[in-house]
């Protein structure tokens, strides 16, 4: 009864029910794996599988913090890049428009992994950029910025032309039109995909492990190669990412309700 309610009402209640369900499943899964892991482990190695990984908790912690740092920096930078590219794509100046289009198409048409390898080993090395973290943030921002640009552009273009006409009739300058009319309405439109993109950004940062940035995924890999405990190394990895992405979708849902209005 309780379980069926969880599924049936999830559509009506929208946020709370499905999120609750997700948490419940997550905790059950975690608890199940934890108990079997601990029991199975305790028989073999003296301290058990979890205990041997526990010694490396600092490695996890450092990696997780670095992932947060990289994500936050990339979030800020990619927002600026995305906004700039979206405005450039709407610009009256043709070279600006075509450059932005080229950027968006190239980035969206190639895999992130290929971009990381190319930009780091070819471009960053070429210009002498040694700092891996800075390079990683830049690569991730360029990648995410292209997707954000398209979302922002779509949000701006979804605003009815009557709104812009009204703004002109009132005598708003172009800047005022963006500030008072376009930005608040576009933001409301693109909030859900925006939150999704920011969650993607966090997850995509895991690929930076390929160029030796000691973020969360690389940390887990290191713990694994030191302990040979795959489950105990990689389960915290998954949970650690979820702990970052779930709040984002929750906050997005709250904001959506807060900004809700009828057109």
């Amino acid at each position: 009864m309780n379980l069926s309610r969880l599924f049936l009402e999830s559509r009506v209640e929208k946020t709370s029910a499905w999120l609750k369900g997700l948490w419940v499943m997550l905790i059950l899964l975690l608890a199940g794996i934890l108990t079997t892991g601990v029991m199975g482990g305790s028989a073999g190695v003296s301290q058990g599988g979890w205990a041997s990984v526990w010694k490396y908790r600092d490695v996890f912690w450092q990696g997780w913090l670095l992932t947060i740092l990289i994500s936050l920096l990339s979030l800020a930078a990619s927002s600026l890049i995305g906004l700039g590219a979206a405005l450039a794509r709407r610009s009256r100046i043709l070279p600006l428009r075509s450059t932005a289009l080229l950027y968006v198409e190239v980035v969206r048409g190639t895999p992130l992994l290929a971009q990381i390898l190319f930009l780091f080993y070819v471009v960053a090395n070429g210009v002498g950029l040694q700092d891996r973290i800075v390079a990683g943030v830049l690569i991730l921002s360029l990648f995410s910025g292209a997707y954000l640009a398209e979302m922002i552009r779509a949000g701006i273009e979804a605003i009815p032309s009557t709104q812009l006409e009204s703004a002109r009739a009132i005598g708003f300058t172009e800047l005022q039109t963006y500030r008072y009319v376009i930005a608040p309405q576009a933001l409301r439109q693109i909030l859900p995909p925006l939150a999704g993109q920011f969650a993607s950004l966090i997850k995509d940062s895991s690929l930076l492990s390929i160029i030796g940035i000691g973020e969360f995924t690389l940390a887990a890999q290191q713990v694994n190669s030191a302990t040979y405990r795959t489950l105990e190394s990689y389960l915290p990895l998954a949970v650690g990412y979820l702990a970052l992405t779930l709040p984002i979708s929750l906050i997005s849902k709250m904001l959506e309700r807060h900004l809700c209005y009828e057109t």
Partner: protein
Amino acid sequence: MKLEALGITKSFGQGNLRRNVLDDLTLNVDFPHVLALLGPSGGGKSTLLRVIAGLERPDDGLILLNGTPVPFTDKSEATLRDYRRSLGVVFQAFNLFPHLTALQNISLPLTAVHGLTEDAAKERALGVMDRLGLADHREKLPGQLSGGQRQRVAIARALAVKPRFLLFDEPTSALDPEMTSEVLTLIAELRKEGTPMLLVTHEMGFARKIADQVAFLGEGRVLEQEPAGEFFSNPRSLEAQRFLAKVLAY
């Protein structure tokens, strides 16, 4: 108010599809209160109103208001924007900002464009809302208002900037009959206050009652221009006779 249009031409479209919506239109009219622009759909009424409102630049021609030309020849957008700021335009689809309350819709142009302080803008906006019977709707979003109420808020927004004149582009076309009368009553009341009005409408009975002068447009030209009473009782042009026979048939 004295309105002169000299050889206004405006075309839309590309290549073979290009056609003149306003075709060397000339008009010279003096009206104390209300000028109604009437005519069949596609005749150019709304385009003429949008040109007079400074929302469209004509391809050719000149508009004079009380002898002063509308600054179309100056290519800078800022001059034309200053001109637009001196007017109030009311649209068919209300065009309120959906994310702002009724009060904010009215006060935002006052603070952002007309340099009033927040307090002064709020005071003036509230004054206009009270006068237009909108006192109960201050904090509502446009989505929470009926069509008639929305249009009254839009009129309040146009009125609050103390415009030189008001332009109405089919203000009741999107409303049902009851709300139409609600808005028309308001416009009739505004007539008494002295701000000149330019009105594009399909409400013939209303135009007859409220307008001083009528300009009848067809095929991008003014086909007839007369005092409203004469136009409705005794239209001279064949097109106006046909038009009135059709719209007044039912």
